[in-house]
């Protein structure tokens, strides 16, 4: 028998209560995993999308609702000469109804622009040239639209052919219909109109210089807004709210977990007063008693954390496969998050065990062991 056996026995003496406490912690931790995983997935999706395209700055119109308002493609020529700019790529991004889907992202990219570079073909091929009446679909978009290579796809008034399925390395791209800029401009009758310019900077450019560059762009073309990729998201009110809410809810869940474990451990200390006094009488130090209680509650945390991480991970997968969310959100269940959640759970266990452990170590063995 090891000390660990003693700890396990302590938990096992009330299996139902231990089970319920575990359920409490696991649900809390599952909430942490699910909520934080979702919000981080959302954040990462955008950042990876932009970073993977080699984009450091996005130039778009001020205002505009779902997609930014179009402006003239000549804006690019006005800013291309600024220092540190390595490459630019004109884009026209529309969110529109395509066939049976209500909201689909149409991402039209300047033919030959760097935004095409990070697309990895899963099957089929890229369009042959800027004018071929063809589109490539992100994997999720293909799934949502039920398209395979060679299928026709109706974009506004034009019927195009799906020539390739691509992996974009980011959620936004995986859910997009990607086509050449002149093609979409032609279809919607907006020649020379774009609503975004992606800018990649030269490799040695510092964050400071990038900030300066955005300022220069806005000075040169007052009607546009230039934001760095890292700002892009942190400036988004909606995203900040999502992030705050997911952490807020998680904290609440953790607090409930702490109270649950503390309650259980206090009850166990009260119930086992007599046994703890026996342990003191046979020579156990108060430190060892405290350690026993703390290990028990830490172990509750560990098991609860592991179960919670499993529930959370499975739940998130199920959730992100529902039609409402599918394609919009790929949860980020990194090892770091799962590990952190387990660590949080153990910390919850230890913190909730502190007071009960202290209580147990203050017990006076003489009174409890009076004969009789």
């Amino acid at each position, binding site marked *: 028998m090891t000390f660990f056996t003693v700890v396990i026995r302590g938990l096992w003496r009330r299996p139902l209560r231990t089970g319920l406490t575990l359920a409490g912690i696991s649900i809390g931790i599952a909430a942490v995993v699910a909520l934080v995983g979702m919000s981080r997935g959302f954040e990462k999706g955008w950042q990876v999308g932009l970073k993977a395209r080699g984009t450091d700055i996005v130039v778009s119109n001020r205002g505009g609702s779902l997609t930014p308002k179009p402006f003239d493609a000549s804006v690019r020529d006005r800013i291309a000469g600024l220092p540190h700019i390595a490459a630019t790529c004109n884009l026209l991004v529309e969110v529109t109804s395509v066939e049976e889907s209500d909201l689909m992202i149409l991402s039209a990219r300047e033919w030959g622009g760097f935004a095409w570079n990070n697309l990895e073909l899963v099957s089929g091929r890229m369009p042959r040239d800027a004018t071929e009446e063809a589109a490539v679909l992100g994997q999720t978009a293909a799934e949502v639209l039920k398209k395979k290579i060679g299928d026709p796809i109706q974009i506004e008034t034009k019927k195009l052919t799906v020539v390739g399925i691509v992996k974009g390395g980011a959620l936004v791209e995986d859910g997009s219909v990607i086509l050449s800029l002149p093609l979409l401009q032609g279809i919607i009758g907006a020649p020379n109109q774009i609503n975004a310019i992606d800018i990649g900077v030269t490799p040695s450019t510092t964050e400071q210089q990038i900030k300066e560059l955005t300022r220069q762009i806005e000075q040169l073309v007052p009607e546009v807004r230039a934001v760095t990729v890292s700002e892009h998201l942190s400036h988004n009110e909606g995203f900040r709210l999502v992030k705050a809410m997911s952490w807020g809810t998680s904290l609440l869940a953790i607090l409930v977990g702490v109270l649950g474990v503390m309650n259980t451990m206090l009850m166990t200390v009260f119930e086992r007063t007599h046994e703890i006094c026996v342990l*003191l009488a046979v020579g156990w130090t108060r430190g060892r008693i405290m350690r026993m209680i703390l290990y028990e509650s830490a172990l509750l945390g560990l098991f609860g954390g592991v179960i919670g991480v499993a529930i959370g991970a499975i739940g998130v997968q199920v959730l992100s496969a529902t039609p409402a969310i599918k394609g919009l959100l790929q949860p980020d269940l990194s090892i770091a998050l799962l590990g952190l959640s387990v660590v949080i759970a153990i910390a919850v266990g230890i913190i909730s065990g502190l007071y009960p452990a202290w209580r147990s170590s203050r017990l006076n063995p*003489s009174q409890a062991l*009076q004969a009789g």
Partner: protein
Amino acid sequence: MTPPSASALLEAKALTREFDEGHVKALRGVDFSIKEGDFVAIVGPSGCGKSTLLQLLGALDRPTSGTLFYRGISLPDHPNPAAYRAREVGFIFQAFHLLPTFTAAENVQIPMFETDRSASERRERAFELLKLVGLEHRLDHFPSKLSGGERQRVAIARSLANEPSLLLADEPTGNLDSENAHSVFDLIISLQQEQGRTMVLVTHDPTIAGRAGRTLRMMDGRIVSDDKR
């Protein structure tokens, strides 16, 4: 403070213990000295303070005043009372006080956590001790599956776990029928005699007290007689 005499294992001077801010005077000034290897019975009516005295000897409790020395070390000022309880003292209680969620062998191992024994050494020693008390066939039984006499044998084995010099027994046969009481008491006697341990035993059974080498009779918090045979 009177210096302790070198030969005594335990030495008490003017020992008092009060409860409830002095309303209850359990010990009203007790003096005695116990030598290594002594078998001392403490007898007296209920509430005479004998159990309180035993708890002071076991460092489970602290006196209100007076001095109590173990091998020349003051017990109330002991730097590590837990170590004293673990290594020097073996307790045997009337109500056995076994841990219900642990088997007989495990109960015996519990005090050994305070020593450097490895897990396998602990297991081996628990087996030897249970064999010594005649329970080698009950190693993996939980206390609820043992008879009263068997439980007290497990408790005795536990008290010997760390080879203590001093055994303290509080009415060890009080919860047993006469047949079991007899055999358990025989076991305690043999442990004391064969291994030369010091034994302090609280009882109100005169026949048990009669087998001790020395009887301290207590009344109302005081020692009223000290008979040596």
